[in-house]
């Protein structure tokens, strides 16, 4: 009984320490990260155009071209109205990565000893990048945002993400961006994240998805620091909207 109590006390202490660390340690990243590792903490938002794609000419396979033609994005040259669009975001569904980065919304990074946390304002969504040396699970669990595992290489954090749910159907579109470029369950995403200066972070993205792209697709996304704090953003308030055309046909 005493042991159980002690375990509970230890768990409680660990929980309190974690919460305290989330608020206090975020600026003390260096005590966890190896020497020379980048300080990525802070609030960030994209500085690249949201209606762009990783490459101007995406090397789409036939599989991808066919699905791209059926995409009805909310942005870019093929913009459809909200009632006609089939972008995941119009249904308040997760966009996955790198898709989330294209939203004009801030996200905050916290660096901890065994993981890096990204808190996204849009959808009140959080992403964990595991830094504890683990391997990807032998039996994959495909999820909306996948599993992310990272490690530091000098001034760069290298993150690999796998097992993101890929393009499923007309009503369950999964894109790399906001323009409708699809990806499959086979997507392997590599991000090389580094700090360029006090106000700029750069993520070099490589998409390896042989089902959708005949060769790896790469691009560099840049982000600027923001002074404001994240706020609550419940996308599903859409369902309460009295502007009926803000949401797709049910």
């Amino acid at each position, binding site marked *: 009984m005493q042991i159980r109590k002690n375990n509970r006390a230890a768990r409680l202490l660990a929980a309190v320490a974690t919460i305290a660390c989330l608020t206090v340690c975020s600026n003390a990243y260096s005590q966890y990260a190896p020497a020379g590792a980048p300080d990525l903490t802070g609030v960030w938002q994209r500085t690249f155009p949201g209606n762009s794609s990783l490459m101007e000419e995406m090397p789409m396979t036939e599989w991808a071209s066919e699905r791209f033609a059926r995409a009805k994005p*909310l*942005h870019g040259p093929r*913009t*459809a*109205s*909200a*009632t006609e*669009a089939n972008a995941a975001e*119009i249904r*308040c569904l997760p966009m996955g990565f790198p898709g989330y980065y294209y939203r004009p*919304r801030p996200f905050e990074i916290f660096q901890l000893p065994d993981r890096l946390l990204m808190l996204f*304002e849009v959808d009140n969504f959080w992403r964990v990048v595991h830094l504890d040396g683990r391997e990807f699970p032998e039996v994959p669990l495909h999820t909306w945002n996948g599993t992310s595992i990272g490690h530091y290489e000098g001034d760069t954090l290298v993150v690999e993400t796998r097992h993101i749910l890929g393009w499923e159907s007309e009503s369950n579109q999964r894109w790399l961006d906001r323009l409708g470029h699809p990806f499959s369950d086979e997507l392997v995403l590599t991000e090389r994240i580094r700090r360029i200066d006090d106000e700029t972070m750069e993520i070099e993205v490589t998409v390896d998805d042989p089902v959708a792209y005949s060769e790896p697709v790469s691009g560099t996304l840049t982000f600027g620091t923001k002074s*404001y704090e994240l*706020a609550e*953003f*419940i*996308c599903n*308030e*859409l369902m*309460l*909207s*009295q*502007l*009926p*055309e*803000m*949401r797709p046909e049910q």
Partner: protein
Amino acid sequence: MAASNLSLAHHANSAYDRTTTISITGTVTRWQFINPHCGIWLQVSQEDGTTIEWAGEFQSVQDLYRFFGWNKDTFQPGDEVTILGNPDRRDGHASMWVSEVIFADGTRVDVRNTP
């Protein structure tokens, strides 16, 4: 035109004619301060003495709060306001994508002016 046909607006602004800006003055009937986009409805008098309802679509709660300090109480039913913006392209849709608001005291807010 029936009011039920009028409060139509689009999430994406493709439904709106971005090359045209119109100005509508009326009395606030509803203010919907929700994500992902906010909305306002105005009762607008017409020359023939009848009134119609206009709808205006804005960006998100966070943009309007963060950059302009607006909240769920910014507009009250009965307030007189003018909204400027891009009209819906379709006939019979009295709605716009709002670019600017002029309050009764003359204060103007350019809601597209965000960092």
